[in-house]
């Protein structure tokens, strides 16, 4: 038992009696040059005991500094005291020989081991490689076996941007090690800074990283420790990722492994929480790398493991990259602080934020989708990170867009049904035992991938699963017609899950193949969905063309009723949604309802047609008919186990109709029902739930309960800010909040939010969009309230111009009337001012 020496009695007494004074004196003289300390102490302190104690502590402080300095300078290299050193900075290899490898020098150290440059002599030729000695806790007994078992998978990692794993073993002392291709290069961050690469050049390198990760994901290998120091750049500017495949070789029992493997500053929340990981965890890692590439610091810099874990538990997301910019970082990016911040604001901030969402499902659905967005940004096309949310929102006030289902259980079910359907067909046609075994293999492999508890492999995300399924289908289904059908089902599931990039490609393939085979029905079906994707992407003209083509094709003899009905619904809905209110739309939707009923199509198709029909009626101000249909829909969803979100949307519609034209008080319980339905089916952070709040608040405002509306929206605002970031989608929130403030007389606040709303919408929407008119209206009202009639005048004019003539519904007309009234009040106020002396 060791004892540190007991403190001297004098020290104890001094500490106990003069604790505060000793500290003050210590702080006071510590910064002085050595020679001046004692003199100064003598001047300010008469107590010799205290003086002696302070000097004693100062000596300790100096000794401590010396000890630390020598410690960090690598006094450990000598190795004489290697056993007692607590430092991690051991530079020399702990052993010289490891199996057949001779270790030359250390290259780096990480969470699960240190890497050494190693040589091996084969037939007189010296081969160089990198050898990583693994921490024993990282691997278990079957480590080497697993490496050999995984050989085939790891071989798939052959990619120009990935360093290969060559070998695995244990040395005579049972030390586990991994052998990797040795790459001469510089860490990503050092490379970029040394070259002073600007944002564009950094993004180009980042795309190389994405390509490597995406390649690995296609082979169902995740990295789980993506960070700048795991990325090397060669002198030729080629990116090389380190440590890919390592995750597959770690302990199978899962105890802390995913957490320990990760580096807290870059780790995904699910890794910090020791929850199942997936390809989405790597999307997070990529986002963290991008964050640092752009700003010079990691998303959670200066945060400890404890702090990081807390952040993960509380779902705290890192601050925007624009706020992380420093002058030094800007200089290294060939820019100034202001210019860099400007470059990052908007699209890039949205892209990074989308990668770094707490919830895996809210991130990019794949690395490919992330790369695609970066390319869009580089080509100055609008990015999906912003539009994805913008697409939902077209609805604002007058039109509402369908909300995507996004229920993974439903998607898995679709996969299963598709596959078993094809399987049955094949069995009937071929009765081939071998074929059925293959189908079972596909099914079970898909389900294994979906199962987070399946050991050794990460949980695949739904989009991942669908992509793999799509790629593998041809191995299992030989009949081209069956194959196309199965591909269509999977592509539609991709679309439903929000993976538009992959769905677009899949539909394009199907259209091409169906055209060649003369399969008009399949072509029509694929075109209908392709049209929907174009609309969501904002390519209205392309979407309309495809939708019209699909509709025409679907009328050909031999095309199934379901395809025909779908083509009708999609065509009509999108015409309506894009402002082309034609009578044919109503006719098509009515026909779709009738046909789906008479041909006994699925309830889902019928309800879709009914809902869109009701929406189209509402667009024409035919509220009574719209309401009747919505009410008729409610019991239909009751039979659908996955219909809760749909039902909530219908409740939202009913509430909205009551709020704008009927019994306003009756709308409140309906809003509540809609909101709570979304809470149950999609959660508080879901778009559906969030979308209900502003409308609900509007009803409260109109019922004279504006202060409640203010409270409700003020509470919801931070969530909107967090989830929607810089996008223009906060418009509903800002607009209704401004309106509520107006009513309670807080004109200044109303003004503030109205201005923000108008700024966000300008440039995003057509200049004559009604929503721009509404933004002007509320801003004009706020300014008038503040007594700034002159400034209100142009907004009032604009509101009248945009809202009066185009009003089609009761609600629209009421707003038009408000605009006219505002213009009149403004004029009166200005007239009074001219009259006054």
């Amino acid at each position, binding site marked *: 038992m060791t004892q540190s020496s007991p403190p001297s009695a004098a020290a104890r007494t001094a500490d106990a009696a003069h604790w505060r004074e000793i500290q003050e004196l210590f702080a006071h003289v510590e910064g002085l040059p050595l020679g001046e300390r004692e003199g100064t102490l003598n001047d300010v302190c008469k107590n010799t005991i205290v003086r002696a104690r302070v000097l004693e502590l100062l000596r300790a402080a100096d000794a401590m500094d010396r000890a630390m300095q*020598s410690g*960090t300078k690598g006094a450990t290299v000598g190795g004489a005291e290697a056993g007692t050193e*607590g430092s991690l900075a*051991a530079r020399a290899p702990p052993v010289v020989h490891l199996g057949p490898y001779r270790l030359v020098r250390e290259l780096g150290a990480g969470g699960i081991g240190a890497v050494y440059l190693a040589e091996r002599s084969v037939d007189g030729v010296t081969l160089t490689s990198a050898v990583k000695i693994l921490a024993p806790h990282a691997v278990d007994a079957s480590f080497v076996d697993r490496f050999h078992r995984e050989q085939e998978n790891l071989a798939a990692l052959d990619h120009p941007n990935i360093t290969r794993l060559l070998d695995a073993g244990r040395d005579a002392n049972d030390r586990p090690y991994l052998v990797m291709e040795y790459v001469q290069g510089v860490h990503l961050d050092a490379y970029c800074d040394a070259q002073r690469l600007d944002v564009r050049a950094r993004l180009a390198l980042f795309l190389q990283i994405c390509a490597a990760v995406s390649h690995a994901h296609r082979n169902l290998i995740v990295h789980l420790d993506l960070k700048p120091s795991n990325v090397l750049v060669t002198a030729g500017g080629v990116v090389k990722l380190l440590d890919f495949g390592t995750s597959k070789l770690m302990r199978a029992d899962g105890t*802390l492994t995913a957490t320990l493997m990760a580096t807290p500053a870059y780790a995904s929340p699910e890794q910090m929480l*020791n929850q199942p990981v997936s390809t989405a965890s790597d999307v997070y890692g990529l986002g963290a790398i991008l964050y640092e590439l752009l700003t010079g610091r990691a998303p959670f810099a*200066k945060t*400890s493991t404890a702090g990081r874990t807390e952040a993960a538990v509380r779902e705290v997301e890192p601050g925007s990259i624009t706020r992380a910019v420093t002058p030094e970082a800007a200089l290294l990016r060939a820019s100034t602080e202001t210019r860099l911040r400007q470059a990052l604001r908007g699209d890039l901030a949205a892209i990074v934020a989308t990668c770094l969402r707490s919830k895996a499902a809210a991130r990019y659905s794949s690395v490919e989708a992330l790369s695609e967005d970066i390319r869009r940004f580089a080509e100055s096309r609008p990015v999906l990170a912003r539009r994805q949310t913008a697409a939902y929102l077209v609805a604002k006030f007058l039109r509402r867009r369908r909300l995507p289902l996004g229920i993974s259980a439903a998607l898995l079910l679709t996969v299963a049904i598709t596959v078993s359907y094809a399987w049955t067909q094949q069995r009937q046609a071929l009765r081939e035992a071998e074929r059925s075994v293959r189908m079972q293999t596909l099914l079970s492999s898909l389900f294994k991938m979906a199962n987070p508890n399946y050991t050794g492999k990460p949980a695949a995300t739904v989009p991942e699963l669908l992509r793999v399924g799509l790629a593998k289908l041809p191995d299992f289904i030989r009949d081209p017609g069956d194959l196309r059908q199965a591909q269509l089902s999977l592509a539609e599931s991709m679309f439903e899950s929000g993976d538009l990039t992959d769905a677009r490609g899949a539909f394009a393939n199907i259209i091409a193949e169906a055209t060649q085979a003369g399969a008009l029905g399949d072509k029509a079906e694929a075109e209908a969905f392709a049209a929907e994707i174009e609309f969501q992407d904002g390519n209205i003209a392309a979407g309309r063309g495809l939708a019209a083509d699909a509709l025409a094709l679907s009328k050909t003899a031999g095309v199934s009723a379901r395809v025909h009905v779908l083509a009708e619904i999609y065509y009509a809905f999108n015409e309506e949604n894009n402002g082309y209110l034609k009578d044919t739309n109503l006719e098509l939707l009515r026909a779709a309802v009738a046909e789906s009923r008479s041909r006994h199509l699925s309830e889902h198709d019928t309800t879709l047609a009914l809902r869109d029909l009701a929406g189209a009626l509402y667009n024409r101000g035919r509220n009574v008919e719209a309401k009747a249909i919505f009410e008729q829909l409610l019991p239909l969803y009751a039979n659908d186990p996955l219909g809760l979100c749909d039902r909530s949307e219908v409740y939202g519609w009913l509430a909205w109709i009551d709020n704008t034209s009927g019994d306003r008080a009756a709308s409140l319980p309906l809003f509540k029902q809609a909101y709570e339905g979304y809470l149950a089916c999609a959660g508080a952070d879901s778009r559906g739930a969030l979308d209900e709040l502003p409308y609900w608040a509007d009803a409260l405002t109109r019922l004279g309960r504006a202060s409640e509306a203010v409270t409700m929206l003020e509470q919801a605002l931070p969530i909107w800010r967090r989830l929607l970031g810089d996008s223009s989608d906060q418009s509903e929130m800002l607009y209704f909040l401004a309106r509520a403030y107006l009513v309670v007389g807080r004109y200044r606040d109303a003004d503030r939010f109205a201005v923000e709303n108008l700024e966000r919408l300008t440039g995003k929407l057509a200049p004559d969009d009604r929503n721009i008119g509404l933004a002007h209206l509320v801003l004009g009202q706020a300014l008038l309230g503040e007594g700034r009639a002159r400034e209100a005048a142009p907004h009032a004019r604009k509101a009248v111009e945009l809202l009066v003539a185009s009003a089609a519904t009761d609600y629209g007309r009421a707003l038009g009337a408000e605009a006219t009234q505002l213009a009149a009040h403004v004029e009166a106020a200005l007239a009074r001012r001219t009259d006054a002396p």
Partner: protein
Amino acid sequence: MSDNSNSEDPQSAPSGEVTQLLRAWSAGRPDSLDPLFKLVYPRLRQIARALFRREGPESMLQPTGVVNELFLKLVRNHSLKFDNREHFFSLAASLMRRILVDQARSEHRSKRDGGLRVPLHDEMEWVSGLPSADLLDIDRALEDLEQLDPRKSRIVELRFFLGSTAEETADLLQMSKATIDRELRFARSWLYERLQPGGAPGGAAP
């Protein structure tokens, strides 16, 4: 496999009880730390054991895993509201200290190899400059410091045992970073002085 699948498992202790004890502890009843410790300790100890076992000199493991697991243990499955973050983090730091000290005690037989090398926070390096000081000495010195100045000992715990950064510590204790730095500088010097072997090079004898 099945035996190890308990990482997702709610703790063996009823979560409600943990929450209650935490509340009591936060409300300033330090006596509730002991029962609380008993409740969460067994699993933590098991993890600490697993993490420190078989560690060769070449692979020094940061207690990241222990800290992480500790946090998850305390917050998962019961909606702990972090009403008082300072208390919560201080508790976690105290627990970490006890885990490490306990671990050191149980491995004391290997003292000849230089005792348990505790890879604490980077800035704990100054301790390794001391030939004789091991975790048990530090623990005793900290107890003395706590008598004199509980706040300083709390800062040391947060910084060195939980690994909180200076910024986080300042934030938690609602002090400026400069104050934290100054307090820490003094506390470290004090500990360093206290841990100096009084003339004789520290007893390496068992």
